[in-house]
């Protein structure tokens, strides 16, 4: 439909961390949790409480830090140090609390009245078995296209995080073997699934990086203890050396390749 290169460069409108979406490469460590997620209250109600101390909730397999909601404000009750209200976005209602520390905060909440469409940014908190939203920013909506746009973004982000999970079924079934004959079939079917996922999923690795890592994962490359010289990679892939160097630097920071006898020889870490 859209070229996968278009989707790569779009990188989820800032909501998707661009390095973490390739299923065959992703391990928990390389998948950064997104800084902000647009969500519906229904999605929040389906969140799983994670045992991780850093964040409390997991949605679509991703640690949720900050969320954005668009909906109608209700039941606004102003107290001394905070303002409590509920947000109803049409999929459900969630209790929110906005701590008011200074005049700027109180001015912000003054503008909000019951039945008014607002956009809130906040952090999910579990409290007495319920999920609440601790709001750090609330703003009335003036252009109502924001309503449709927010829900489109919720759908898009959800789609992006779900796709790799569906696709990971392909790569998980390919076992990683250390002996050569199995490695041949593993790397070739791994290569196929990479091509397949390259077409359909949002791919964190660019084309050249993929070719480099694929070349380094061939059994002939893996068999060489001293690794492969980057000139050889450039020659074999028919790609200019600077591009190879960029690709290798990026793969190295991902932990996928390492340099061996000198800075020009590289090997894949998956050997």
């Amino acid at each position, binding site marked *: 439909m859209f070229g996968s290169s278009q989707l790569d460069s779009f990188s989820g409108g800032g909501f998707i961390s661009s390095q973490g979406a390739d299923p065959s490469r992703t391990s928990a460590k390389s998948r950064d949790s997104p800084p902000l997620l647009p969500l*519906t*209250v*229904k*999605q*929040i*109600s389906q969140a799983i409480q994670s045992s991780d101390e850093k964040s409390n909730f997991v949605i679509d397999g991703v640690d949720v830090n900050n969320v954005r909601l668009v909906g*109608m404000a209700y039941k606004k009750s102003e107290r001394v140090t905070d303002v409590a209200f509920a947000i109803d976005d*049409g*999929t*459900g*209602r*969630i*209790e929110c609390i906005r701590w008011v520390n200074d005049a700027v905060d109180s001015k912000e909440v003054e503008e909000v009245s019951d*039945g008014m*469409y607002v956009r809130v940014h906040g952090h999910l908190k579990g409290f007495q078995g*319920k*999920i*609440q939203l601790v709001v750090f920013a609330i703003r009335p909506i003036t*252009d*109502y*296209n924001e*309503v*449709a*746009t927010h*829900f*489109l973004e*919720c*759908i898009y982000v*959800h*789609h992006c995080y779900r796709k790799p999970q569906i696709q990971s079924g392909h790569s998980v079934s390919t076992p990683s073997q250390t002996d050569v004959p199995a490695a041949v079939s593993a790397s070739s079917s791994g290569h196929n699934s990479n091509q397949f996922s390259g077409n359909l999923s949002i791919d964190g690795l660019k084309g050249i990086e993929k070719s480099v890592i694929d070349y380094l994962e061939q059994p002939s490359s893996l068999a060489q203890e001293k690794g492969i010289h980057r000139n050889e990679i450039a020659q074999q892939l028919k790609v200019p050396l600077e591009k190879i160097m960029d690709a290798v630097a990026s793969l190295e920071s991902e932990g996928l390749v390492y340099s061996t006898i000198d800075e020009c020889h590289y090997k894949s870490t998956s050997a």
Partner: protein
Amino acid sequence: MDTSNPAVFVNAELLRLHMGRRVRAVIQVMRSDGGGTVTGQSTDGQQITVKGNPPGPLTTFVEVIGIADGIHSIRAEMWSNFGDTLDTFSYNRICLLANGDYKHLFI
């Protein structure tokens, strides 16, 4: 947190699938007679009737949330003025997606 009473995004076509349930729709106001009925064009170009008295003057686009009580009619509980310009195509796409592949995010 309460997800027991969602309002489904609908256009005129999808309204018939949610009879008796709480729905939300954006209409472009065509006629509003004083007797508690507003006729408008839904985001897919078809006409629907909204019963109820709006709380005040209406802008060109209005979102109504209420109960679907006919294949082309909604009994409104709430009215929100959406202004005089709105991208109905996007809103219509939301209606289709929220009733289709991404239903689980909404209802």
